[in-house]
C-alpha cells in the first residue's frame, strides 16, 4: 500500500514536472537557479533550470510518468526494492537540475546506487545478482573518473563549484584532454559506449519492468546529458576539432556491436538492452560530429549535429520505455521472455502488439517515426560534417556514416526479429495461449508513449524548437530558420525532410490502394489453413501446428550471424541436421560472445588478480616480518633525511 501511494505521488510529481519543464521550454528556456542548504558543508548545492536541463528534464519526467504508472500495475512482484524506483527518478532529476559539480556527482552516484538496488529485489534468481555485480564493477570506477573530471574542471577556478564559474574558466592544455578522457570513461560507460558496455545488457534486462523502463529510457539519456553538459557546456567552445574523434570512433563501433548483439540475443529484454547500446553509440557519433564542427567554428553545422543527437535521445527515451514495458507485459502475460517460448501473441494482446509495433518502427528508423527523424538529422549532419574538416576527419566521417547506416539496418533486422518471432506467428508454448491483454495501468503508459513518439516523429520541428535554448547555449546557433513545424531544412535554401508530408503522401497512396481494392477487388475473404509450402494439416495434439516448423529466433538471426557475427561476435553455430528419413526437426544453436566486452573483462580480471596477489605479498604475514619492514622503512627515511634534510 505505501508503495502504491508512492507510485501515485510519483505519478503526480513527474506529471507536474513534465508540464512545468515543457512550459519552461516553450516560454523560452531562460535560466532559473536555486540554492539549497543541503550539500557541501557551508556551501550547499546549486540547482538550475536552463535550456539543456529543461529539455532533458522533460524527457526524464515523461519516462518517469510512464514508469510510475507501470509501477502501479506491477503490484504482484512485491519486492521492497521497488521503492528505489522513485529514488532513481529523484536522483536523475537532481543530476539533470544540478548547477554545481557536487550536485551533479551526487545525483549521478545516487542514481547508480538506486539502479543497483533495483536489481536486487528477489533472492531466488542469481541472474540479477550477477548483473548487479557487473554493474557495480564498472559504475563505481566510472563515477570516480567523472568526479575527477569535474574536480579538474572546478579545480582551476578556486572554490566556486557552480557551473557558471567553471564556464568562465574553461580547461586548457593537458587538463582539457584529461577532462575529455575521464568524461568519456565516466559518462560514456554509463551510456554503454564501447568498450565499457558489457554491463549494460544484463543490468537493464534483469530489472523489473517499471525500473527497466526507467533504466532503458532515462539512464542512457542521463549519461548522454552528462557528456553534453561536460564536453559542450563546461569545457567551453574553444576546444579543438579533434575532440570529436574519440566519440566518432567508439560511437559507431558500439552501435554496430550493440545492434548485432541485439540480433544474437534470445531474451526479449536483452534484445532491447543491447539495442540501447547500439542507439547510444549512434547518438555518440552525432555528438562527435557536433564537437568536431564546433571546434572548426561551424556553429550551424554543430547545432544540426547536436540537434540530431538530442532528437535521437528523445526518440530513444520515448521508444525504449515503450518497448520495455511491452516486453514486461509479454512476460507478465505469457510467462517468459525467451523468444523460443513466445509467439502468436498478437491475437491475445492486440494493443500491446500495436504499441510495440510503433516502438519497433521508431527503433528501426522507419519513416515517419521519431527514430527516422533523429537518424535523418544525424545523417545530414554527417554529410555536412564531412565538408567541415581536414581529409582525415572527412574520411572518418564517411566511414562513420556507413557504420551508422549498418547499425540502423541491423536494428531493423532486430526489430523485425523481435516483433515477428515474439508476437507474430504461432504459439511455441502452451502457456502463450493463456496470455491476456495487460491491464489498464500498463496499457495507458504504453499508449501514451506510442502517441508521444508518433507525435515527435510527425513534428520533429516542434521538438527541435523546444531544444533551441539548449542549442543556442551550447553551440551558439539554433535551427530556428531551418526547422519548422512542417519540415526540417538544414541547408536553409534547400528542401529537407518533412515527416508530415511523407506521411500525407503515404496516406494518399494507401487511400488509393484501398480505393482500388474497393473498386475492383473481390469482397470478403475465406479463412483456411495456412498453405505452408504444402504441409499436411497438423496432428490433433498440436492444434496450432508443430511450432518447430516456424523459424526460431536463432534461425532468424542465422544468416546475419553467419555473415557478420562470425567476424564481429565470434559466433559459432551448432547445427543438428537430421539424416534423410528422420522425422525430428533440425535445430540450430548459436553461441555469440562480445569480443570487446570479453577482452575488457579479462583485462580487468587479470589486473585485479595481479594487484591483489602483489598486495598479498606486500604486508609480511608475521609480526616480525612487519617489524623488519618497519626497520627497512625507517632506514629509508633516514637516508631520505640525510639527503634532503640538510638546511
Amino acid at each position, binding site marked *: 500500500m505505501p508503495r502504491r501511494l508512492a507510485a501515485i505521488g510519483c505519478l503526480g510529481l513527474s506529471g507536474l514536472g513534465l508540464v512545468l519543464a515543457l512550459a519552461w521550454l516553450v516560454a523560452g528556456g531562460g535560466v532559473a537557479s536555486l540554492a539549497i542548504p543541503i550539500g557541501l558543508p557551508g556551501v550547499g548545492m546549486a540547482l538550475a533550470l536552463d535550456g539543456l536541463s529543461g529539455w532533458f528534464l522533460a524527457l526524464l519526467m515523461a519516462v518517469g510518468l510512464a514508469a510510475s504508472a507501470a509501477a502501479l500495475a506491477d503490484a504482484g512482484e512485491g519486492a521492497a526494492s521497488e521503492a528505489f524506483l522513485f529514488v532513481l527518478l529523484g536522483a536523475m532529476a537532481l543530476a539533470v537540475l544540478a548547477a554545481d559539480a557536487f550536485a551533479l556527482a551526487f545525483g549521478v552516484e545516487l542514481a547508480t546506487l538506486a539502479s543497483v538496488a533495483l536489481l536486487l529485489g528477489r*533472492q531466488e534468481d542469481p541472474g540479477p545478482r550477477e548483473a548487479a555485480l557487473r554493474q557495480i564493477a564498472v559504475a563505481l570506477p566510472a563515477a570516480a573518473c567523472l568526479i575527477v573530471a569535474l574536480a579538474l574542471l572546478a579545480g582551476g577556478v578556486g572554490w566556486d563549484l557552480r557551473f557558471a564559474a567553471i564556464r568562465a574558466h574553461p580547461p586548457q592544455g593537458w587538463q582539457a584532454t584529461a577532462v575529455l578522457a575521464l568524461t568519456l570513461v565516466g559518462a560514456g560507460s554509463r551510456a554503454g559506449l564501447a568498450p565499457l558496455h558489457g554491463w549494460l545488457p544484463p543490468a537493464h534486462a534483469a530489472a523489473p519492468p517499471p525500473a527497466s523502463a526507467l533504466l532503458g529510457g532515462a539512464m542512457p539519456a542521463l549519461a548522454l546529458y552528462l557528456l553534453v553538459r561536460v564536453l559542450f557546456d563546461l569545457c567551453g567552445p574553444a576546444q579543438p576539432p579533434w575532440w570529436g574523434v574519440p566519440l566518432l570512433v567508439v560511437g559507431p563501433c558500439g552501435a554496430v556491436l550493440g545492434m548485432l548483439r541485439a540480433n544474437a540475443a534470445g531474451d526479449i529484454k536483452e534484445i532491447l538492452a543491447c539495442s540501447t547500446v547500439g542507439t547510444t553509440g549512434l547518438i555518440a557519433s552525432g555528438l562527435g560530429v557536433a564537437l568536431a564542427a564546433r571546434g572548426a567554428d561551424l556553429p550551424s553545422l554543430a547545432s544540426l549535429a547536436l540537434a540530431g543527437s538530442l532528437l535521437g535521445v528523445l526518440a530513444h527515451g520515448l521508444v525504449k520505455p515503450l518497448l520495455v514495458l511491452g516486453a514486461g507485459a509479454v512476460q507478465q502475460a505469457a510467462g517468459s521472455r525467451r523468444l523460443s517460448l513466445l509467439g502468436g501473441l498478437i491475437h491475445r494482446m492486440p494493443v500491446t502488439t500495436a504499441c510495440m509495433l510503433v516502438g519497433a518502427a521508431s527503433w528501426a528508423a522507419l519513416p515517419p517515426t521519431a527514430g527516422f527523424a533523429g537518424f535523418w538529422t544525424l545523417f545530414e549532419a554527417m554529410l555536412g560534417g564531412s565538408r567541415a574538416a581536414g581529409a582525415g576527419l572527412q574520411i572518418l566521417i564517411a566511414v562513420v556514416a556507413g557504420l551508422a547506416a549498418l547499425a540502423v539496418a541491423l536494428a531493423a533486422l532486430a526489430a523485425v526479429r523481435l516483433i515477428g518471432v515474439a508476437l507474430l506467428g504461432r504459439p511455441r508454448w502452451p502457456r502463450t495461449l493463456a496470455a491476456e491483454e495487460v491491464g489498464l495501468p500498463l496499457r495507458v503508459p504504453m499508449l501514451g508513449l506510442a502517441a508521444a513518439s508518433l507525435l515527435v516523429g510527425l513534428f520533429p520541428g516542434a521538438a527541435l524548437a523546444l531544444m533551441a535554448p539548449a542549442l543556442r547555449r551550447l553551440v551558439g546557433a539554433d535551427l530556428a530558420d531551418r526547422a519548422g513545424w512542417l519540415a526540417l531544412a538544414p541547408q536553409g535554401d534547400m528542401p529537407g525532410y518533412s515527416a508530415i508530408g511523407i506521411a500525407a503522401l503515404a496516406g494518399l497512396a494507401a487511400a488509393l490502394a484501398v480505393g482500388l481494392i474497393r473498386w475492383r477487388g473481390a469482397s470478403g475473404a475465406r479463412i483456411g489453413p495456412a498453405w505452408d509450402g504444402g504441409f499436411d494439416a497438423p496432428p490433433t495434439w498440436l492444434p496450432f501446428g508443430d511450432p518447430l516448423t516456424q523459424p526460431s529466433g536463432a534461425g532468424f538471426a542465422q544468416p546475419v550471424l553467419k555473415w557478420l557475427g562470425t567476424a564481429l561476435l565470434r559466433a559459432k553455430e551448432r547445427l543438428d541436421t537430421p539424416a534423410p528419413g528422420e522425422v525430428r526437426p533440425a535445430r540450430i544453436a548459436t553461441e555469440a560472445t562480445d569480443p570487446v566486452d570479453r577482452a575488457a573483462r579479462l583485462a580487468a580480471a587479470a589486473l585485479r588478480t595481479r594487484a591483489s596477489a602483489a598486495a598479498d605479498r606486500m604486508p609480511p604475514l608475521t609480526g616480525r616480518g612487519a*617489524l623488519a619492514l618497519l626497520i627497512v622503512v625507517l632506514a629509508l627515511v633516514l637516508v631520505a633525511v640525510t639527503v634532503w634534510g640538510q638546511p
Partner: protein
Amino acid sequence: MSVAFAIAAMLAELASGPGLVVLVPLVSAIGLAFVPNPRLAGWINAAAATLTLGLAAALPFEARAGLLLRVDPLAAAMAGLTAFVGATTVWFAHSAAAPEAGRAEAAGSGAWCALFQLVLGGLLLALLSNNVPATWVGFEAATIGAICMTGLPRTEEAGAAASKQALLCGGGLALAFVGSTLLYLAAVPALGSGLPAMTWSRLAAAASGCQPALLSLALGFLLLGYATLAGLAPLHAWVVDATAEGAAPGVSVFSGCALNVALIVILRVRGLLAANAGAIAPGAPIMALGLASVLLAAASLWRQRDAKRLFGQSTIGQSGVAAFAFGLGSPVAIAAGLLHLVLHTLTKAAIFQGLYLVPRREGRFDDLAGLLARHRGLGLTLAAAIVALAGLPPFGLFTTTFLILLETARRLPGLALPLALGVGVCGVVLLRRLVFVVAGEPAPDRGVAPPVAALVPAWVHLALVLVLGLAMPGPLAGWLAAMAEAVR
C-alpha cells in the same frame, strides 16, 4: 623547585573539566579491574562512559592551553567523537551482550570493561594533552589496552594477532618516543630547556625558530611511529588481524578512534614542519603513505573473505584517504580530512555493531549472505552502513571524498585519478559484498533476531553520518573551518 612546581600545576589541571574527561575512564579502568561481577562491571562501565561523554560534551566551551592539557577546537571535537563512540559502544555492548553465553565472556566481563576504559582514557589523554611525551603516554596506555583486548578471546588466532600487534605497535611507539625526544631537542633553541619546549601549543607558536634539521629527523620518526599506530601502509600489517580477532565492540572503538588519534598527531606534527622554512616539506611523505594505503586496500580487499577482515582492510584505505588530505595541507583539505575521519569512525562503529549482532560463526561473509531476508532490520542497518562506507551518497563520506578529490585535482592533479580509482575500487568490493548481504542465498537461520534496542546506536551513528555530511549546520561548518585553519 621547578619540577615539583610543574607536577603540582599538572595535577591541578587534572582537576579541571578536561582533566576529568581523562581521569574518569582511567580511574574507572583501575576500579573495574577489581570488580568480579560482570553485571555490575557492565553497569559501571556504562555509567563511566556516559559520564565521560557528558564531560566531553562541555569541552568546546573550555578552551585552554595549560602545561598538561590543551583544549582547542580540534582536540575538543575529536575527544567528543571518541567519547561518543565509546559511549555508544558501551551502551550497545550492554544491550546486546546479554543473550548468548559465548559472547558474554568476551564483551561483558570485568576485564573487557577495564580494558575498554583504559583504551578510552588513553586515547582521550593523547588527544587532550598539551605535552608531547604525555600524548605518547596516552597512546602507550591505549595500545597496551588494545593489545590485551585483541588477545581477550584467548584463541590461538587472537593470541597471534595480539602478538603481531604488540610487536608492530611496540616498534611504532618506540619510534614515536624517539621522535618526541628529537622534537624537544629541536625546540630547545627556540624555547629553551624546560616544559615549554615539549608543549604542543608553544611549539606551534615557535615552530619557525626550531632547529630545522632536527625537526626533519623528528618528523621521520614521529611520522613512522604514528603511521604505524594509524595503520597506514606499509606498516598496516597488524590492523586487519587485530580487527578480525578482537572482541567486536571493543575493536570497533579501536578500529575507528585509535587510528584517528594517531592521524591527528601526524596532522599536528605536519603543522609544525610546515611552519618551519628550513625543514623538509612534510606533505609529500604523508601523502605517499596515504596513497599507498588507499591503493593497497583497493588491491587487497578483493581477497578478504571474512567480514571483519574486510572491514579492517577498508579502515586502512579510509585512514589513507584522510592522511592524504592532511598531506595536501590546505585548510579545505584538512577540514575535509577531519570530517572524513569523523564520519568514517561513526560508520565503522555502526558496521561493527551490526556485525556483532549477526548470528554467526564470527562474521564470515557466507553467514552474512541473505541477511536481509533473515533479519530485516539488521540487514537494512548493515546495508546502509556499507553503502555509507563505500562512499556513496546520500551519506557523508561521499561529500568528504568529493572534497578531497577536488582539492587534490587543484593542487596535485596527477594524483587525483589514482586516489579516485583507489577509493572507487574499494567501493566496488564493498558493494559486491553488499549484494550478497541483500540478495545472497540465505543461510539456514541460526540464532534469534537481535533486539531492536541494540540497533539504536548504529542508527544514531548513521543519522549523524547523514546529517554531518550533507546538511551540516552553519556554525558547525565554521567551527570545522576554524579547526583546519588552526592546525595548518
